[in-house]
């Protein structure tokens, strides 16, 4: 990592720490959601951006994580911070298991299989025999965590820092994972799986593992979102959520770690802007934004920034 990059990250971190003290609680809550989405997008980007497997069903893992957290808190009385790794572990296993049979499916067929998962999830959550735990259609309301040890932060600020800490850990882990051997193997499989196989990369294991890790990230994000929103219900996790995730990683920049953050900012704020521009057709406005972004920055925001920096370096 170059010195300049390091400096940039430190500045960003300082800014992130100061933020909740200068903006309102409502904005703090919004930025908490941005970090939640960023974690989810990072997970999907590992799968789709780095490994080339398209998933249209990541909302299902997000829901799984959220429900894990909510049920653990509601039924078992678990502390909220413990539910995050638990949700991650459950989703890791679920993602790996789903990844195994899905391996036989390539490209669009995999997209369809995951789409089925995403569509089925809300109905599974409504399933009568699970209603004892899931609360059925009514969902589960959970309490908001307070800052521990008498730290002088209000619940919104505390939640922000808690989410920031988890997000940081997840990003550092991803950075470690992706810049090394594993990352190169994932990209090799994406670019030419036969060649990758010839180089001794076990396609099956890597692809399933990528699915598992990706689901784990999304599950962690789901758990964080449940804690932040204080409520889970089947209607929160419809198929549209999965599509929005995909939009997020493409806009942010495929196969880019920082892209997850840009994508998260986009899916958090652009729908609100669109709604303010037009009540009659908010999604039409959203569509215009989308087309605009894709046209101006075909490699996502992260790609555009990289290009800009490269140009500047050439000029100097």
């Amino acid at each position, binding site marked *: 990592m170059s010195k300049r990059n390091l400096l940039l990250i430190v500045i960003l971190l300082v800014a992130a720490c100061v933020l909740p003290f200068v903006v309102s*609680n409502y904005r703090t809550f919004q930025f908490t959601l941005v970090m939640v989405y960023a974690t989810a997008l990072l997970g999907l980007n590992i799968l789709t951006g780095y490994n080339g497997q398209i998933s249209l069903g990541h909302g299902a893992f997000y829901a799984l994580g959220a429900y894990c957290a909510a049920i653990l808190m509601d039924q078992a009385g678990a502390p909220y911070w413990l539910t995050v790794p638990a949700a991650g572990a459950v989703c890791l296993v679920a993602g790996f298991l789903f990844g195994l049979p899905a391996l036989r499916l390539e490209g669009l067929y995999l997209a369809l299989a995951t789409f089925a998962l995403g569509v089925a999830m809300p109905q599974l959550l409504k399933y009568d025999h699970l209603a004892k735990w899931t609360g059925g*259609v009514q969902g589960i*309301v959970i309490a908001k965590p307070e800052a521990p040890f008498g730290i002088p932060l209000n619940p919104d600020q505390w939640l922000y820092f808690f989410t920031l800490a988890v997000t940081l850990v997840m990003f550092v882990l991803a950075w470690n994972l992706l810049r090394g051997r594993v990352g190169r193997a994932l990209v090799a499989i994406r670019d030419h799986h036969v060649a990758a196989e010839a180089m001794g990369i076990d396609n099956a294991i890597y692809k399933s593992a990528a699915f598992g890790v990706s689901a784990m990230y999304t599950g962690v994000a789901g758990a964080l979102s449940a804690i932040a*929103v*204080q409520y889970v*219900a089947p209607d929160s996790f*419809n198929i549209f959520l999965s599509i929005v995730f995909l939009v997020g990683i493409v806009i942010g920049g495929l196969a880019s770690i920082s892209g997850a953050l840009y994508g998260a900012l986009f899916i958090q704020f652009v729908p609100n802007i669109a709604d303010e521009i037009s009540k009659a057709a908010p999604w039409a406005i959203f569509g215009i934004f989308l087309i605009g972004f894709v046209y101006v920055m075909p490699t996502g925001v992260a790609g555009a920034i990289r290009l800009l920096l490269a140009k500047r370096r050439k000029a100097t």
Partner: protein
Amino acid sequence: MKRGLISLGILAALTAAPVQAQKKYDPGASDREIKIGNTNPYSGPASAYGTIGKTINAYFKMVNDEQGGINGRKVSFISYDDGYSPPKTVEMARKLVEQDQVLFLFQTLGTPSNTAIHKYMNMRKVPQLHVATGATKWNDPKNFPWTMGWQPNYQDEAKIYAQHLLKEKPNAKIGVLYQNDDYGKDYLKGIKDGLGAKAKSMIVAEVSYEVADPTVDSQIVQLQQSGADVFFNITTPKFAAQAIRKAYDIGWKPMHFLNNVSTSVASVLTPAGLEKSVGLISTAYIKDPTDKQWQSDAAVEKWRAFMKKYYPDGSLTDNSNMYGYTVARTLHQVLQQCGDNLTRENVMRQAASMKGYAIDTLLPGITISTSSQDFAPIQSVQLMRFNGTSWERFGQVLSSQ
């Protein structure tokens, strides 16, 4: 003489003082403005209901333009799209309360969406007024003193059908078709509660469908084969039309109860076939603008004129627009009663002290009543039967209490 003047002066001071001292405001209210927040599904799976938000917006535009607002204050109705997604509702509700600083939220739509903000609103002590859902839990002033419903709740309505059935046909065999969500299950519970101990023996078949299903044809066949002679049809408009048509086409002629959600002549019975809808039993509390008996009703005429002038894109055959207009008028009255005391507490107090307030777009005999222990504004409905052209109301105005 002098003494007389002094006592007159004291009297005048006594009577004048309270009038002047009572201008009280919470965030969102001022001498010039009352800010009201709202969330509605303008996009997403329930976007058909978005028209309610638009009607309310149009209503307050009319109030501002024609009457100079309420008690001299303009009404700002701030409404955001939540796409029927609970996390989005939380975000938008927080935006309205914390950033836009509205006085209260009004008519937030959807059971899951309102559940998501239920705790938050009560913790912040900001009214969540006249929510647009028929779930039963909104009438709980003890635990949630800042939340109030408006329409008759699903369970009460279902109980009324059950009571009618027990009286008319105590040995009936009942088949139920319901939508597999909170709304359908709430109704189902109401039916069972209404039948009491006989529920187990009377209900011979319970069949559900998902909102995403293309048709309910197979469910109807299943119900017919169960031997049921009474049909509880707990479905939303599209499925209600299918169910009515299919039951008729396969020659199944049960005593047919249709829930109030789907009683629109234009959007349910006409597509199902008017001749196939004869004999349906339902309830109503609001005037259906497509029903012939209200064709030249003064209140409905007035509503039409309002729609044409302030919401010309809105459909004149959509019940939701009549609903939005009527609920907005309820709020109008609440704010009128608040006078110059526009605190959140007083808004709740006034909303909870409506004594038989009549609105002419409600059915004759149905009024709005609340108290500090009763947060269910409309509790009564009237049974009605379809005669092939319009709904005929029969019996008394009923309430399940």
